[in-house]
């Protein structure tokens, strides 16, 4: 299956290589570099590149390319999914997945990669199992290790790998037993010039942070499970129970995990929580353009819009901007032509606006398309679809856990065409 893995940074250097079978020369990456050169943007490198003897399957995350070398037929998603799992694991271990973090922890990285694949076939990808095998480096542990000479490699053997619930490690103990669930919904939308919605849909996830002693068996029920149109579960969720009763029943992994992701059925009309008034014009023959943008809340169910950020890729002809925000800060990068405006909170009484002029390249013709505006925002304490958790029960353990649930709505890919 997966023959080798190369980690390539944005400047095109291979800074880590790992082989699970015979060594594949790193010159195989030349094909990748060629493709990288051809691509205008880093994102445009095709994920699958055939070469005479190998196939390169790559993912790009945190500005690092993870290039897997394949020799024979294998479902490409299998590899892609695995690579993403690798990145997730690194992130889990080191907090960030950057070139520096990987280089600093190269031994742990190597140990992890060794455990995750055997002969190119995934062996242990559950983070709970990996953490039993190899303890994540923390500052405290580093200090302790220095003093005592002990290591990051777990002494005890990962029995979880063999159990019926491979995602949960054994012998979990906490003094404070807590279970937190975050219902996070993202709204994807395309709004057209006139402000009408072209497409809008809501995708949600329930992320959990469960710190419970022993082997708790949890059930989570919803007030309105019918809202969920299409769902995918963490392997711990008992599918039969969901099919029959629309109840999530599971023995949770220890720590953070994604319990569920769902899609809200598209029959329900999606309330768009924000509107944008815009007036962006370029005049033929003039080297000036007008730029006006006003934001306002709309159908937010009384909750405030927070952490609003506007970003827009302005046309290549724009040399610079001279804008005046009524609140927040704005920034224009003349090289990438990326305009970003950190608005912050929207006050319905005093709508934020960004007005001013753009200077265009002299003599250049007027750009034929107005830029698209991407909006990010957050609405706390509300799930846009109206999904509500009914109750959470625990079986199998005696103690009383502390339970918490939080709702949040975020903008996903929210675009306004102008």
């Amino acid at each position: 299956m997966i023959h080798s893995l190369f980690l390539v940074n944005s400047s095109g250097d291979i800074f880590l290589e790992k082989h699970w079978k015979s060594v594949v020369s790193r010159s195989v990456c030349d094909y990748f570099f060629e493709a990288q050169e051809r691509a205008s943007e880093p994102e445009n490198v095709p994920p699958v590149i055939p070469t005479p003897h190998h196939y390169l399957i790559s993912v790009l995350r945190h500005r690092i390319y993870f290039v897997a070398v394949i020799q024979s037929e294998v479902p490409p998603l299998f590899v892609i999914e695995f690579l993403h799992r690798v990145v997730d694991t690194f992130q889990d271990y080191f907090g960030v997945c950057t070139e520096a973090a990987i280089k600093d922890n190269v031994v742990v990285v190597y140990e992890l990669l060794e455990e995750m694949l055997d002969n190119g076939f995934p062996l242990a990808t559950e983070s709970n199992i990996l953490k039993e095998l190899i303890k994540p480096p923390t500052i405290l542990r580093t200090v302790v290790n220095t003093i005592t000479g002990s290591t990051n490699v777990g002494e005890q053997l990962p029995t979880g790998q063999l159990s019926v619930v491979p995602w949960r490690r054994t012998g979990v103990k906490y003094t404070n037993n807590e279970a937190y669930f975050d219902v996070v919904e993202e709204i994807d939308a395309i709004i057209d010039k006139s402000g009408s919605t072209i497409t809008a849909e809501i995708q949600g996830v329930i992320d959990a942070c469960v710190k419970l002693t022993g082997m708790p068996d949890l059930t989570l029920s919803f007030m309105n499970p019918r809202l969920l149109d299409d769902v995918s579960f963490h392997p711990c969720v008992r599918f039969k129970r969901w099919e029959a009763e629309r109840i999530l029943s599971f023995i949770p992994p220890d720590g953070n995990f994604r319990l569920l992701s769902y899609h809200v059925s598209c029959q329900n009309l999606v309330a768009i929580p924000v509107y944008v008034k815009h007036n962006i014009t370029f005049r033929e023959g003039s080297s000036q353009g007008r730029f006006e943008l006003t934001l306002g809340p709309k159908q937010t169910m009384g909750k405030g819009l927070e952490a609003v950020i506007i970003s827009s890729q302005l046309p290549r002809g724009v040399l610079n901007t001279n804008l005046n925000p009524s609140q927040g800060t704005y920034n224009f990068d003349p090289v990438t032509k990326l305009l970003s405006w950190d608005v912050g909170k929207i006050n319905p009484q005093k709508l934020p606006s960004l007005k001013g002029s753009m200077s265009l390249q002299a003599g250049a013709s007027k750009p034929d398309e107005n830029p698209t505006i991407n909006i990010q925002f957050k609405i706390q304490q509300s799930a846009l679809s109206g999904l509500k958790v009914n109750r959470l029960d625990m079986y199998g353990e005696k103690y009383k856990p502390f339970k918490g649930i939080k709702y949040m709505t975020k903008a996903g890919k929210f675009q306004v065409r102008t």
Partner: protein
Amino acid sequence: MLSMSTNNLSYNDQGGSDSAVEVGQETTPTSSNAGFGLFSTNFKKNDDLKEMLESNKDSLKLDAMKRIIALIAKGKNASELFPAVVKNVASKNIELKKLVYVYLVRYAEEQQDLALLSISTFQRALKDPNQLIRASALRVLSSIRVPIIVPIMMLAIKEAASDMSPYVRKTSAHAIQKLYSLDPDQKEHLIEVIDKLLKDKSTLVAGSVVMAFEEVCPDRIDLIHKNYRKLCNLLVDVEEWGQVVIITMLTRYARTQFTSPWKEDGQFDENSETAFYESDEKKTKNGDEKKSYMMDPDHRLLLRNTKPLLQSRNTAVVVSVAQLYWHLAPKHEVGVITKSLVRLLRSHREVQYIVLQNIATMSIQRKGMFEPYMKSFYVRSTDATHIKSLKLEILTSLANEANISTILREFQTYVKSQDKQFAAGTIQAIGRCATNISEVTDTCLQGLVLLLSNRDETVVAESVVVIKKLLQTQPTQHSDIIKHMAKLFDNIAVPMARASILWLMGEYCERVPQIAPDVLRKMAKSFTSEEDIVKLQTVNLAAKLYLTNSKQTKLLTQYILNLGKYDQNYDIRDRTRFIRQLIVPNEKSGALGKYARRILLAPKPAPVLESTYKDRDRYQLGTLSHTINTKASGYLELSDWPAVAPDQSVRNVEVIEPVKEWAPSLGKTGKSKLSKSSDDKFYSDSGEEEEEKDKGSGSSSSDDSSSSSSSEESSSEAESDEEKSSSPSSEESDKSSSQSEKSSSESDSEQKKKTTKKPPQKKTVKPTAKDSDSDENGNVAKEASSSSAEETSSGSDSGSDADSHSGTERKKKTKSKAKPKVEVKSTKVVSLLKEVSLLDLDDFNPTPVTRPKMSVLSPSLLGDLEGLSLSNISSTIQVSGPAFVPEKRHDLLHRMAGKGLSAHYQFPRQPCLYQPTMVSVQISLTNTSDHPLEQIHIGDRSPTGLHMHCFNTIECLLPDASVTVSLGVDFNDSTQAANFQLCTKEDQFSVSIQPAVGELFLPVTMTEQDFRKEQGKLLGMNESSATITMAAENTTSQPISRQVATVANLGVVPSGQDNIHRFAGKTASSGAVVLVTVELRGESTALITINTEKSVMGPMLLRDLKWALAQA
């Protein structure tokens, strides 16, 4: 990094000045290490590392290894450190060991001779009692790509494949692939192992062994038959990566084994969405319409069991299920995958790319599937280019009369996109829509013409090209457009577009007689500065005009032809010469000249604007080959449906007769199984509970399938009966239906059969032991006999191999291995031989073995070696006689309850004569009534799997007479009671024998040293201990021995120390070693330690012992 540097500094004093420099450099942050590596000479650095590795401080070694790993990670060569590193392979420090493994696997191929030094370490670790250590040893051993150790690997794999731990078996499945890639000649042997592992019921193993199957012998589809249903049923509980592999394999399997569920006429209802809608409407009626087709219940089973996996969080699993439905499900059921695929579009960019590709292929054939989700394919400005173009592709495929206006409006936005490549793609898409949907052709054409005045060259060029194609398909009056394009000609610089316009002029020159010559005139002027493709078209245009309008253009044409004649490009020169000969009449021109007009101005077929994904479905969806649109190496073709389904009974797991024989006694297995599992809860290592669960789900679903299949079958039967009751075909269908009914009932009983077979397997996996059991009971399983035959043959092979090596060495090894599994069965013997290391370089620390022991054991062993088929006779040899036989009698049947028959039982603690796995029980029967009792015998028993050797029927028992009979009961190493019925002629009495845990053992003799060694293997979870306060009388050796012997049938092990008493035994059924140590501590306290792999029995025995020793 911090820790490393401080460590280094602390050892500095010993290191000397050289290393001080080194250390100083090393303290610089790692990021600069790469640069540092360049400046320092490599060998000097390595010297330093070598020194560190050779020190006797683990921390120094560890630091060295960490630096070496960092070198490897950067792709630097660290191979000359091999000898220094390999020395540490047996280190006690786990992290150090792991890093050495990493190094070893990386460089073993380059340093084959030195790598051999490490082999013995792994061979030793392969015998470790801890399954995880065994597994990791096998993992590393098989990863060392050194051809010389192939035989060792082969042996290790074979042995691991029958390991009791599913995790080790999983590792062996991985090792199969590694060995195969190292030495393909081993294929046949490996297939045997694969076959064996395929039968494994653990979910851990399933995915890995199927992977091995795919890699080694994907064509051996016959190996799957018997495991097909099991795989289907296990699938949900297999880990996600295994699911992908199994699903892909089962897709291929199903295509060879089942008949097509698709309608005969429209196997691919291409482009006929109407057909799809029809089938949609008629979904409910489908059943009535397609009487002829009846889905195989196994086919249904696969579809049903994969469906829940569409909810998996793993995108690879979802897509593999999607492709399974696409390739296997009836057309009207494929719809279920749509939602899940659309959901994946929220995932990472790379995932989107693959999913969109698959959707693109699907949407060409089945627009209806994705049309409701059209908006999910709208392009966002932030999408990557390849994703944009895929979305465009799908939108184009989805376009129909109803939604085209929406789509075109959307396209209008895209055309204006800043990403010009994407805009060009959109124009092509518009062109395709225009050809596919005739209603909008004109609108599209107008729109495209408007685009001709676009400022961007690529957009204009693309429009020209598309318009050209459109005009060709619509050879009506479009001279306006052509004129318009001629006007634009001067402004267009893109060669392809210019060439297209020229071609259009030439082709339709009769429609624009005024303009064409003028264009030609302009071209004549700029001919020399044009691109090649434009020049060629200019020549073409000139020729065509010459033929239609020679008056105006003769001179121009000659001029152009002259220019062409001396062009730098040979293509153009060639074309010019050809055209000249063709059109200019001269004396040499032959017959061809007459036809010049017909040649050049022939009506040309319109180009077909079609998707690049049109033919992609020749590859299995979701595969690499599908993604790159060429056959990847190792791609396995998906075969077409067979016209006639192959025999479906091949998937039935058992032969019919024995099952029937067993049927009456199978009823109550469930109960015993359940209690068994609860017993085994402690048994933390293997996936028992998992298995239980699987079995539960498996049996339930197979029940389902059988019921559904039978109902289906019966309906078909009825129908066919109605239709033509006398025709041979109906007879056939009758037969087949009855057959399949039979098979379904069989599969039912199979499930139960599996359960009955479970207990023997649970202990230590010994297939032949199991087989011999069933043989005795007259249950001749076909596979069993064949597998045992295989075993024997392989056994003799390895035997001869081993002979070539030094005899003493072998004996030592063999014997040391032999002891733990004292009752030697034929498989055991085979495995013993396998354990003989072919390459034992381990001279440094020979395993401690004592001489006298060897002489005791070896004869029996040799006996076993000679006669592999003699299974059990020799096994009793090491078993010693009981140290003590308790007199205690237990009531079996009270005389009141037994209507005068009273029965007592006791354990004589003698090895059972009937079968060594049984515990012998003496029953004394007394007739207390006043009439003779006749025909006393044993009736029904439970659990049904209970193996019991009954006594012969006692014909008559006179009043006041008593008789003692003996009985053999296989308790399966559990204290679960054996229930059976004691019958007389008139009555039946239910009785039960409840063994104390101590009675399930057989005493063995061994030396103290052996005891310690065995104990060393059974640490950790295999050990249970307790400190007790003993009664005062029990503090000396005599009473202790007596008390222990009373409680448990164990043998005394001579002890060197006065305060430590040791006892040893083995369990009757599985022969697992049980070791008891009583260590006196102080006045009246003692530490009891019990070591046994039977983790349920350990604590129970401990409890009994505590109780006994605390008592006076």
